[in-house]
């Protein structure tokens, strides 16, 4: 036993040495997403998308063997900060990818960027970091949140919708959605219904909508709220007479529960599974095969985040120490995005096309959103002008 101890120590030292030597040509990426509670569906998509990209690239990003460390933020900002600090201090990650939700982003943006580590958000795109508080270490591969609501507002305006009722949860993102929609829509807003966050039965609200007889409803009811609202909207017989416009309410993460009730409902997006390019087709097929689900934007945007890291690490030839060069390489966005045309604005948020999408049934019986028309082309957000970065 006494002899074994020094041997163990030597073995441990060898282990340490090899891992230290290894660090030269390997890449560590922390992925932080919501993986518990009902919103776990979104976080799972985000994590899967990223892992799929790394797998497709042969386990290497930019030629470096890549290790992914996944953390669950539990949708609690304080938990997220603790987990992110562990990723930074203990695991010494080179990049942090995440999160799903804007309130988590608000909590982790500072700890990550101040540690001079690159933070790439594959979903949350708050206005907070798009304007004067934009950050050189922070990149977004999704969109600025307002843009999705603007797509619906613009479409309502163009398609001759005259009277609208808006229904959103009574919290900041809900008010932003309301404002984003009204920013582009100048018709009559009959009513703005604010519901408590997490409400599941909308009987009273649906009766109000039914009585007011609008041309269209604009709903921003993410997650379980949307599942319920869409089903009840259909059950109340409103879907036949009122156009259903929505943001983050019908997508591939909620469709497995909404199914036929959501058929034909409209949404705004920067991508859809049926977006026609060979790379995207391959991605959707592979995701389906691997995870037995149709990917939503969360998956594709984090797939893109991996491609982005790959391109930048390649450009700096694996030299992660030179952060200026790394940031410049990231800013170039020299990769083929699944969505087609993609570049970064001065605030590191994307400039891209936006589409009106519609829920449809696939030949295999699953549901997905499909592109109806392009609403904005090469569209940047309105906060970029206040960002001091060039």
């Amino acid at each position, binding site marked *: 036993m006494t002899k074994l101890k020094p041997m163990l120590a030597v073995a441990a030292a060898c282990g340490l040495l090899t891992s230290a030597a290894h660090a030269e040509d390997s890449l560590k990426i922390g992925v932080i997403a919501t993986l518990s509670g009902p919103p776990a569906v979104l976080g799972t998509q985000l994590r899967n998308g990223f892992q799929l990209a790394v797998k497709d690239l042969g386990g290497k990003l930019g030629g470096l063997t890549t290790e992914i460390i996944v953390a669950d933020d539990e949708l609690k900002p304080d938990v997220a900060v603790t987990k992110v600090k562990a990723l930074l201090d203990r695991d010494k990650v080179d990049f942090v990818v995440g999160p799903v939700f804007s309130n988590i982003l608000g909590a982790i943006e500072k700890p990550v960027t101040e540690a001079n580590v690159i933070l790439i958000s594959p979903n949350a795109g708050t206005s907070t970091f798009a304007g004067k508080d934009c950050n050189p270490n922070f990149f977004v591969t999704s969109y600025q949140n307002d843009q999705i609501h603007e797509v619906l507002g613009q479409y309502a305006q163009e398609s001759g919708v005259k009277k609208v009722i808006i229904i959103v949860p009574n919290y900041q993102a809900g008010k932003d959605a309301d404002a984003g929609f009204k920013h582009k829509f100048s018709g009559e807003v009959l009513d703005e219904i604010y519901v408590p966050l997490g409400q*599941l039965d909308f009987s009273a609200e649906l009766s109000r909508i039914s009585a007011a007889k609008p041309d269209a409803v604009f709903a921003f009811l993410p997650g379980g709220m949307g599942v319920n609202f869409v089903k009840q909207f259909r059950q109340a017989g409103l879907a036949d007479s009122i156009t259903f416009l929505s943001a983050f309410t019908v997508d591939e993460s909620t469709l497995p529960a909404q199914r036929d009730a959501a058929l034909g409902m409209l949404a705004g997006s920067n991508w859809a599974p049926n977006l026609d390019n060979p790379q995207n087709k391959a991605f959707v097929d592979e995701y389906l095969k691997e995870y037995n689900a149709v990917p939503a934007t969360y998956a594709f945007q984090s797939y893109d985040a991996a491609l982005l890291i790959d391109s930048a690490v390649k450009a700096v030839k694996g030299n992660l120490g030179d952060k200026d060069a790394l940031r410049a390489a990231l800013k170039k966005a020299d990769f083929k995005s699944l969505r087609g045309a993609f570049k970064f604005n001065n605030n590191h948020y994307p400039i891209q096309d936006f589409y009106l999408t519609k829920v449809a049934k696939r030949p295999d019986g699953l549901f997905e959103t499909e592109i109806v028309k392009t609403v904005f082309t090469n569209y940047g957000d309105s906060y970029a002008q206040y960002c001091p970065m060039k």
Partner: protein
Amino acid sequence: MTGTLFFIQVLNGLQLGVLLFLIAAGLTLVFGVMDFINLAHGVQYMLGAYLAVAFYGLVGNFLLALILALAAALAFGLLLEFLVLRHLYGRDHLDQVIATFGIILFLNHAVRVVWGAAPLTLPVPDAFTGSVQLAPGQLYPVWRLVIIGSGIAVATGLYVLVTYTRIGMLVRAGATNARMVSVLGVNIERLFTIVFGFGTMLAGFAGVMIAPIISVEPGMGTNILILALVVIVIGGIGSIRGAFVAALLIGLVDTLGRSFSVDLLRVVMAPSPARMVGPAIASMLIYVLMAIVLYLRPAGLFPARGR
């Protein structure tokens, strides 16, 4: 126009009310008869919904799935009583709260492990899809009417059971003075088990009935449990009649508050702040109601006699 809208909102309120009653009935009996705080009652409701989805996937028939789910919910409730709750009857309320809270955490996670975190869905039975026209342009889903109907039927059945049968008499006696009933030679343990199993099944029934309307997901029982607790406190603990009246009251106050608070506030406020303040006030209304009831009648509206 406003008249029909009001009428429809009353229907909506009734629907929420009977749903709350189905859950609160079991809760109030368990609380009243056994002096046992069962926070896990909400997860029984969730479990009912999950079981219905699972059985529907197997047999493809709503009625059959409903029966199987009720049987399974009852069996599970009895198992839970046997394994955990039975050992807590004589204990302090705090022990009961902690233990049943543990059951909530455990079951919420267990359904996630078994069925996944994604919301599931149960289709409306074919015979009751669609909606009826209550007024020109005002459609109302048939299934919601079915919920109201079945809730009232269950309430009537319960009333008959509790008022006119021997077991009902024992339940009422137990709610008044459990120890005296025991001393008189009634097997109180068995009575407890029956009451508990029955309450569990009612909560499961509520879960099955609401599943076609809302998504079935982990944690769906938590919010409804809070409302059910408000109901039994307002109604008077241990009283079925109290639970019925209080459930309808809460359903109506909550629904009408949500529907008309903004319009009422607009009379005295500018539209924009009214829109912000309205929902906040609406979600407080039932608790305000509870405070008022407790101030005027500390034992609730219909306290079980002798307490």
